[in-house]
């Protein structure tokens, strides 16, 4: 079976003031349909950079080499127009910071419909029906009112759900979630993760979940790739990462997380004792 997305020896170099800085140093991984790949790593490890490079979202000062295949087709070297058609269509991407991702000057309905129009030639009625269906599917109450709202009038969790709704509305073969839970509170985070799991199960979508949060990744990912300083340092399922990690960086990440969890549990138990 051909993987939905396959990166092979992907390198990204930033040319700046006649210096070349290597940001991603030969990253390789792949994701199949119906599978969720978790990409773990701290900020600056090249997680988002690799995906942006594959999707043509970097500007000209970045030099991308290696190979990135989507459903067997090479993406690097494709024209800007071909990549544009892919983005928002067959590849849905969800970003972090939903509060700043929508244009503040346009209503939510206008931003949904412009996305539809960029990929299809639907009539105004069809766009409206599909927009309402999208919001309903994301369990947003009063979808008619929400279409008329400006981004600043909605909460971060709602905007995040709308973003996921837009990304999945074109029935993508690949859904990339780039730290979708960093900017929202714990309860919304939980719901958003549930939403993603449901999408993966129902639509057999290949999913890449980028995060530095072990907790979130453990809930959704079937397989995990650990990135550090632009290189893949470890990969395997969650159990492997947790107990048999060979790489010192991965071990450190897990230990730190475990420490935090232990402290958290102690505080919780202490509280319970106080209440009792």
């Amino acid at each position, binding site marked *: 079976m051909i993987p939905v997305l396959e990166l092979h020896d992907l390198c990204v170099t930033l040319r700046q003031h006649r210096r070349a800085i290597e940001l991603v140093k030969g990253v390789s991984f792949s994701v199949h349909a119906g599978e969720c790949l978790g990409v773990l790593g701290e900020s600056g490890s090249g997680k988002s950079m690799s995906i942006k490079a594959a999707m043509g979202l970097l500007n000209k000062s970045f030099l991308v080499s290696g190979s990135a295949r989507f459903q067997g087709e090479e993406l690097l070297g494709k024209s800007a127009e071909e990549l544009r058609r892919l983005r928002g269509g067959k590849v849905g991407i969800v970003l972090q910071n939903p509060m700043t991702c929508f244009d503040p000057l346009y209503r939510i309905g206008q931003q949904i419909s412009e*996305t539809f129009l960029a990929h299809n030639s639907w009539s105004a009625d069809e766009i409206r029906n599909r927009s309402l269906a999208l919001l309903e599917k994301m369990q947003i109450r009063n979808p008619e009112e929400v279409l008329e709202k400006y981004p600043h009038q909605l909460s971060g969790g709602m905007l995040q759900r709308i973003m996921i709704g837009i990304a999945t509305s074109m029935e993508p073969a690949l859904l990339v979630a780039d730290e979708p839970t960093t900017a929202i509170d714990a309860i919304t985070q939980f719901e958003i993760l549930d939403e993603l799991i449901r999408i993966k199960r129902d639509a057999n979508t290949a999913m890449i979940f980028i995060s530095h949060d072990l907790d979130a990744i453990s809930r959704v990912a079937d397989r995990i790739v650990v990135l550090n300083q632009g290189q893949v340092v470890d990969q395997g399922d969650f159990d492997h990462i947790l107990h048999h990690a060979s790489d010192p960086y991965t071990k450190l990440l897990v230990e730190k997380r475990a420490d935090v969890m232990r402290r958290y549990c102690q505080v919780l138990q202490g509280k319970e004792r106080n209440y009792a």
Partner: protein
Amino acid sequence: MKRYVIRRLLLAIPLLLAISFVCFVFINIIPSNPAEVALRVQQMPVITEEAIAEMEVMLGLNKPFIVRYFDWVLGCLHGDFGINYVNPARTVAGELARCLPATLQLAAVSFVIVLVLSVPIGFLCAVYKDGWFDKIMRAIIFISTAMPAYWVGLLLMWGISVKLDLLPTNGSGTWQHLILPSFTVALSYISTYIRLIRNNMLENMNQDYVLYANVRGLPQKSIMVKHILKNSMHTCIVAMGMSIPQMIAGTIVVENVFSWPGLGTLCISSIFNRDLPVIQTYVLLIGVLFVVFNLVFDVLQTVSDPRLRKED
């Protein structure tokens, strides 16, 4: 919104009083006697002490300073801005009304030139950042910002009117007369706005909403025009609005270079003739224009930005 506008207008009253008072004080510091200057301009052959005293009584200059100021302010409230010292048959209001249309015409044409040139050039500079177009425009901006308006005016007059004989050197009447003065006024504003729009757009390009628009696969043209340009223009609105009264006030030098019969020319001759009421009223008028345009464009920005708008 209504309460906001009323409050702003009420706040403008002490501001205008302060402006007019300071102006009044400064004009009265000028050492020469306006009555004597008026007689001289009226070409009185022998100026005697009696004649000056008579003129002072006629113009009300014999009264104390504060009394004269409040007389003038009270007159203004009745729409009476005083009489022309040099030619007492003419009222100040009449003089300003005579000269205002020419200045408004000049300022309006300049503003249109500024809009038509700076928005597309600023846009293209941002889109093709560091390309040949951007580099050439930046060099032109650099040079034109450094050139004072009266010199640019003289250069254009020499090059286009005298050497090439394409347009009239001075005066007014036809649209050909308008081109050189309005372009001279517009030039410095064009450079400012090209830079403002270019930098605003470049700043906006790094915003999350642009990345997300790309992520959704929107066409580049739509991202540039519908999203980046619109958001950039937004922050320019107030600056552009404030440049309208600046243009009306700032035509003084250019009007004199091109002998344009507007407020600027009137103001300069009034200063030479010590025609106090005209200078006073001119300064007040410009003050009012600044206050009004500032308010109008603040309101416009509130209306056009959904984040500032209060949904009723």
